[in-house]
């Protein structure tokens, strides 16, 4: 994939393949093009050159929380249940339980704390049990316990054969990843996870 914003080239030939049952990460400095890459992968943005092919359902958790502040948590779930064509909310409730979030079901999104809004943002990406999960800075605003729960959730999903791509500007928790790329100068560079931890 290649992409530029006017004269500013962000991606200069990014090529990546995510196999089933892989928990992968992409790190890079601010402005390296991580969010642009994820927007292209999710279909939000058309690349100048290149193409994206998904196998199976995919879920996308955007970096900035995308909710409607006038709806309650339950109303969000109901709307996305219709969007995904789900028969029930079973999976969404499981995700909420895993993130310890069920008590806020009837709370309006506009009244939730930053961390709780991010939990709902993540739940909407996960509630249809996607085969491929694209997460852009998914744990921002999480407290420590929720942060741990998030990684446990991601690991379980990977173990069940789902593909997960986490994009972050921080290179923490790389031991949990099967693959790690660094996005630099518009290209992906495969990283050695252990040595990267030291750096």
């Amino acid at each position: 994939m290649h992409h530029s914003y006017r004269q500013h080239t962000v991606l200069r030939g990014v090529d990546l393949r995510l196999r089933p049952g892989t928990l992968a990460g992409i790190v890079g400095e601010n402005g390296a093009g991580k969010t642009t890459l994820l927007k292209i992968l999710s279909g939000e943005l058309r690349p100048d050159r290149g193409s994206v092919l998904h196998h199976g359902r995919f879920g996308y958790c955007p970096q900035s929380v995308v909710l409607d502040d006038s709806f309650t948590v339950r109303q969000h779930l109901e709307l996305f249940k219709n969007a995904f064509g789900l028969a029930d909310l079973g999976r969404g409730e499981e995700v909420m339980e895993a993130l310890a979030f069920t008590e806020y079901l009837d709370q309006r999104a506009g009244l939730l704390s930053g961390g709780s809004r991010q939990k709902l943002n993540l739940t909407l990406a996960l509630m249809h049990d996607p085969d491929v999960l694209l997460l852009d800075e998914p744990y921002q605003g999480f407290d420590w316990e929720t942060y741990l729960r998030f990684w446990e959730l991601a690991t379980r999903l990977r173990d069940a054969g789902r593909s997960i791509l986490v994009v972050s500007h921080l290179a923490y928790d790389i031991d949990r990843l099967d693959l790690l790329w660094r996005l630099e100068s518009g290209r992906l560079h495969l990283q050695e996870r252990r040595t990267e931890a030291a750096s």
Partner: protein
Amino acid sequence: MRRHWSLFTTASRYALIGHARNRFAMLLVVVYIPVWIALAYLTIPDQPAPFRLRATGEVLSPPGNHLTQITGALNAVTLIAGFMMFAATFTGGRFDRRLAMAGYPRYHLVLAKLSALTLVCVAVATYATVAVGFGWPPRQPLLLAAALFCAALTYGALGVVFGSVLRREVEGMFAILMISILDVALQNPLSSSGSDSAVVQFLPTYGAVQAGMSAAFSDSPDVRGLVIQCLWLAGASAAAFLVFRRRTRNALAPRQKPWLPAPGRRGTAEKPRAPLPPAESGASAEAHGPT
């Protein structure tokens, strides 16, 4: 067919919930319309203000304050509908896109928005007609309500367009306000002699003003005015639909997006669900995090 209906009614219900929770718009509807109409009635002199209605050629001579009430009512309903739809589209744009990308059919979403707008405009136009009727009886109240309704709907659709294409909230507010001021002021026989100019025929509420004036002060129905307004409405709605469609488009290949999400087809996966950890187990997990 039931699935289409269910998606449409669900989206319509949520669009109405969104409008109902826009407290400022609700306050404007309840307070601004009657206050505007009452102040026009009380403060403008009631001397006759003769003018020729372009649509029928009739020379009408209503009291000046009655005339201002009609233009004031048109101004109030168009501003409220325009602002409401601009605010809903501007703040909900990214959410609509996320819903559409998740599989919610865009036709159902946009039709639901237009249906909710229609209901809001029916309520606002009826309310404004009743408020005018407190001072004096308009000759054809139903036609007056229809004119107010069509004008409000046109500005509502323009609000969707501005909410989709403009980047900053203040830009949209000013755009709607400026258009409304030009639109209503140039057509008001009291404030401008320009109402006899051919230019006014191309203003967004020309048809509604002609139909409204005729409904308020004449016994001859001006259906032509309503037809002209409906043309503006059709144009504004088409533009609203196109910009909404463009804004919620999916850049991935179309074959990957089913047109209609069927319950159980995608959600109950072919693969078994991945078991998720219970809430209390998270804290015990080993982690290397940003401490």
